[in-house]
């Protein structure tokens, strides 16, 4: 590129740089604070590049009351809910994408409505239902809720991915002697795997993030709390120890960020085909 063209592109690249900095800075500030020595954090002039790295804050966060338990709770609830949703959604998506039956339109409409349902508006009835079915203060109730939160989205996305797999492939396998289920398992499922991964990431984020119900439904049994609730009350735990707080936030964000980096390419595709193209 000649210098003049480069000069003309300068404003654009500067704008891009600005967007980059504004977007990334909060995440950078979280991780850098988490790894900075306390002296850097408490300096009057913010230290943008840490003078040295330390795991001290992570030690504080991990040693904090119940952190390990809450982390495990969150992971358990999230993973169970996502796997359950994938399993159930696979069946439903298969029915919608491959089979003909009366009431299909109604079912799809229901799924779309459920995806946008104002769950937060139903805190109290859900609380009452949980109490009446003896599920209050139980992780099982949260798991069930997160399952239903992620299910509609999972169905919609999987249906999109399924529709992209030519039905002829399955039929060919059936001609070659596979049962319908066998054809699905041997032919379609492997093709679906990337879609499943991307979809599960979205479910994972939803469940991992959920706060309102976790805050409301786990009251007496503190052992069963999840990370978001714990993180929200960090000031009780840490006062103004920002290093430890940011270390805890980093640990909270870590599973999502790792999953995201691993799946990034597939995810950006899923982003679009999932939530917009349905």
């Amino acid at each position, binding site marked *: 590129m000649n210098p003049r063209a480069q000069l003309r592109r300068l404003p654009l690249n500067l704008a*891009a740089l600005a967007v*980059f900095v504004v977007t990334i800075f909060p995440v950078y500030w*979280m991780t850098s604070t988490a790894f900075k020595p306390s002296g850097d954090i408490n300096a009057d002039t913010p230290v943008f590049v840490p003078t040295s790295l330390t795991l001290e804050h992570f030690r504080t966060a991990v040693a904090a009351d119940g952190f390990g338990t809450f982390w495990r709770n969150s992971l358990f609830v999230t993973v169970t809910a996502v796997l359950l949703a994938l399993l159930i959604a696979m069946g439903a998506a*298969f029915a919608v994408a491959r089979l003909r039956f009366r009431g299909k339109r109604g079912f799809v409409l229901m799924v779309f409505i459920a995806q946008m349902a104002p769950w937060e508006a139903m805190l109290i*009835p859900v609380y009452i239902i949980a109490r009446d079915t003896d599920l209050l203060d139980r992780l099982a109730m949260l798991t069930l809720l997160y399952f*239903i939160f992620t299910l509609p989205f999972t169905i919609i996305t999987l249906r999109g991915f399924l529709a992209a797999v030519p039905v002829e492939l399955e039929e060919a396998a059936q001609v070659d002697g596979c049962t319908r289920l066998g054809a699905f398992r041997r032919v379609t499922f492997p093709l679906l795997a990337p879609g499943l991964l991307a979809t599960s990431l979205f479910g994972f984020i939803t469940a991992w993030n959920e706060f309102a119900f976790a805050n409301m439904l786990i009251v007496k049994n503190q052992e069963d709390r999840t990370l978001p609730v714990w993180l929200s009350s960090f000031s009780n735990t840490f006062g103004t120890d920002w290093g430890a707080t940011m270390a805890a936030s980093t640990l909270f964000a870590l599973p999502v*960020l790792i999953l995201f980096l691993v799946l990034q390419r597939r995810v950006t595709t899923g982003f679009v085909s999932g939530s917009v193209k349905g």
Partner: protein
Amino acid sequence: MTLSTAPRKVRAPGQELRRPAAPGRRRSVVLWPYLLIAPTVLGVVFLLVYPLLRNVQLSFQNFGLAELIRGGAEFVGFDNYRELLTGQEFWDVVQRTLIWTTVNVVLIVALATLVALMLQRLGRTMRILVMSALALAWATPILAATTIFQWLFASRLGVVNWVLVQLGFESYEGYSWFADGTATFSILVILVVWQSVPFAAITIYSALTTVPAEIYESARLDGASDWRMFRSLTVPILRPIFGLVLCLEVIWVFKCFPQIWVISEGGPNDATTTLPVYAYQVAVSQQHYDLQAASSTITVLLLAVILFVYLRQLFRQEGEL
């Protein structure tokens, strides 16, 4: 098949042309789809429809802490709605919710469009850089982001105050953002916009990339100006996606709860009390479960209108269910 020569029975008028299958086999074919969707339907009925109906029921009852513990709530008709709708507080909250939603959605969609258009024009390296940053911001869990913003805007040692002081705004030395209503509101807007722009930007950008570059080239050859191309090509292409993103963001921003609750619990002086936060306050702090139910029912109705627009747009774009 043309080969079959056996004489056929004449079909009676109105009789099905289809060959009757073996009864057992046919049954299983018809049953399968329903078995496959049954768990989903059950889940939605138990965890969505039933709570919704229960919510409506609550909103017509006198339901406080006593009724929660002992049961036996009495039916009071429209009393709860009357109490809500005649009070000034509720209307303040509704108005604030509308302002909150408008400000956020306008900012999100405008910024996302700009970012998407920018991404389209960037070179490869820069684009990957910005996309990764967007993805990272998008993937940061809500509560982690909320905590980060509390730290960014902390009155002591907060990096934002430091930057403002460096820029010459001495009054921000040790300024406590979370004590002032407007300031807290603004921080929440920045937080929500920061969290929402990546999704919208990437979605709009993907829509832009579906247009073959040749169309733009030929338009340019025909002498179209940048502005003309934007107006006559980009805007029409983006319109359907725009509608979807708009509806999605309206619903998401409207429902937004954890960020507000964790940062300010609706304060200071109710400056950040939107409808979901208000419902939570009424229920959890004041134990007026009946009022909460009435307010939630109104919220659901409001959202249903937006949802209807969204679904109509979605299905129009999809063409089929």
